[in-house]
């Protein structure tokens, strides 16, 4: 059996063959239509197989894929007139969270994104998308500002988790996340979130107490990384693959559990294979959700968001 990578390679080979045939068609005037169709069928077949056989662990790997589009790329692609705003006004400017104001069609919005690097050097600059407390405080400042000017908020989530380090503890990582959860619950403007890569635990939730939450097909969202889960429960981080199977971290699982509102399809291989298409889907959802959410009055909006999170939990009463 071929692995996903091998299947993807096979598809690339077949695509190459098709373009060769097309070239010969053009230059020599020979008709290869039949062969090309056959090859296309073959590609479709392999693609279906990839989708069908994709395990939760494959999605984990895809969600962390180096070429996967990051928050800033979505922001640049979807919005106009983006003005980035920096800093938390207390301590500093965290590079793992970006934010600012922008326009999308007729709506003026606040945009916030957890930002991974686009290459190794950039990743160091962005601290691998692991926000520090001042990042969450910057996000909160911008959300409160959005509320003041009655701007809806769009957040993009992509983090392995909140940064775990001495500096983060000293500056109150727990407090920063907690404060965001509490304050987001009361925001009087619509909040729409997209999990575009990794939704790592509290570090993701801290910008996702939202009215609507969507996930890309190959993104993940969970209580911890599969590695962390395996190391806590089985004292063996190398059993991450197994952990991914039991954790229910895929978009499909989370839609079933009603944690999220919808799934955005990705091309085979991941969002980077056809970013234009994926970002267009995201844009369409933003516009249609803004259309309906901005019709609600403020207390309806806050109450609905409260009820959404209030309902989470599975338990029973015995006796």
């Amino acid at each position, binding site marked *: 059996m071929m692995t996903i990578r091998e299947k993807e390679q096979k598809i690339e080979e077949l695509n190459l063959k098709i373009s060769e045939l097309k070239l010969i068609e053009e230059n020599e005037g020979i008709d290869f239509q039949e062969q090309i169709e056959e090859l296309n069928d073959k590609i479709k077949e392999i693609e279906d197989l990839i989708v069908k056989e994709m395990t939760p662990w494959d999605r984990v790997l895809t969600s962390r894929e180096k070429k996967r589009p990051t928050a800033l790329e979505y922001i640049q692609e979807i919005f106009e007139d983006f003005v980035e705003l920096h800093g938390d006004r207390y301590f500093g400017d965290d590079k793992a969270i970006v934010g600012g104001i922008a326009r999308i069609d007729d709506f003026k919005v606040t945009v916030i994104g957890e930002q991974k690097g686009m290459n190794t050097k950039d990743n160091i600059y962005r601290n691998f998308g692991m926000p520090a407390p001042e990042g969450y405080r910057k996000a909160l400042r911008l959300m409160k500002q959005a509320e003041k000017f009655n701007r809806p908020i769009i957040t993009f989530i992509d983090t392995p988790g909140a940064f775990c380090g001495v500096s983060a503890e000293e500056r109150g*990582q727990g407090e920063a996340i907690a404060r965001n959860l509490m304050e987001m619950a009361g925001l009087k403007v619509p909040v729409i979130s997209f999990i575009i890569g990794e939704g790592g635990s509290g570090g993701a939730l801290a910008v996702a107490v939202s009215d609507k939450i969507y996930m890309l097909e190959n993104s993940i*969202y969970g209580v911890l990384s599969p590695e962390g889960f395996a190391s806590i429960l089985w004292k063996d981080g190398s059993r991450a693959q197994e952990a991914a199977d039991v954790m229910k*971290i895929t978009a499909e699982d989370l839609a079933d559990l009603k944690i999220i509102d919808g799934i955005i399809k990705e091309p085979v291989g991941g969002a980077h294979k056809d970013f234009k298409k994926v970002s267009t889907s995201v844009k369409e959802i933003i516009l249609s959700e803004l259309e309906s959410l901005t019709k609600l009055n403020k207390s309806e909006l806050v109450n609905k968001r409260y009820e959404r999170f209030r309902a989470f939990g599975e338990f029973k009463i015995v006796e």
Partner: protein
Amino acid sequence: MPIGELFRKNYKYIELTKKNEAGKLEGEEKAVPSIPDDLLIKCPSCSEKLYKEALAENMYCCTACGHHFRINARERLQEIADEGSFEEIDRTMVSVNTLDYPEYEKKIASYQEKSGNYDGVVTGTCSIEGHKVVIGVMDSTFMMGSMGSVVGEKITRAIEMADAEKLPLVIFTASGGARMQEGIMSLMQMAKTSSALKRFSDNGGLYITVITDPTTGGVTASFAMLGDIIIGEKGALIGFAGKRVIEQTIKQKLPDEFQTVEFLLEHGFIDAIAPREELKELLARILSLHQEVQ
């Protein structure tokens, strides 16, 4: 003694016995065992051997060095609530196996049997030196006080009860964080409890958190750090990430005082620290300072 030996410089006046690593004299341990082991407990801080009964009478604080032993929710309530005033709510709420995690029900059942509680938090109403409050006490002996659906729901109901009855809310935290075995539902409890606290706070409710040993992870990053007033019990560990995780990340050993309530007080995240014996009086004082004049 021959006269010559009187003038030797290395004359031994006393015999020294070799000490072992713990600083105890060899043979000393053997001299005590007239008392059965289960009546004695060794202080992890100063190694003093303490009678369990005397320890209990001293609120489970070492009589020699003052080290605070961890206590369970019932013991805590006994110390904090006025006698006979505690009335429990939602006692029999139990968890559901959201992830179909292997053996989870069995694990829960064994903790239930050991602790006499159904999950990691005990909630209800009580009075503290006459001040009526809604109280929640987390129990680190129940799966490390981890927060799954039951802990989240019981805390949320306690918040809602305090809101509805216009009572102050006091929560003693002790938790290893989100309960892994309940996956995403555990994570959502952070948002749920924080949302409820937002409403309570907007309605003018007073919320006091008491951080006890150990408070970490998802509980630190939600209701533990959201008190109007945050009190730390002396010496308690509090942090977001586990110490081991940070040590692995930075490849250095961290000092002992890192992630204690004392450390957080210095960094501005905790209002006050009190030893166990003073907690009740401190809570009562704060409550009386919020009491409205009738």
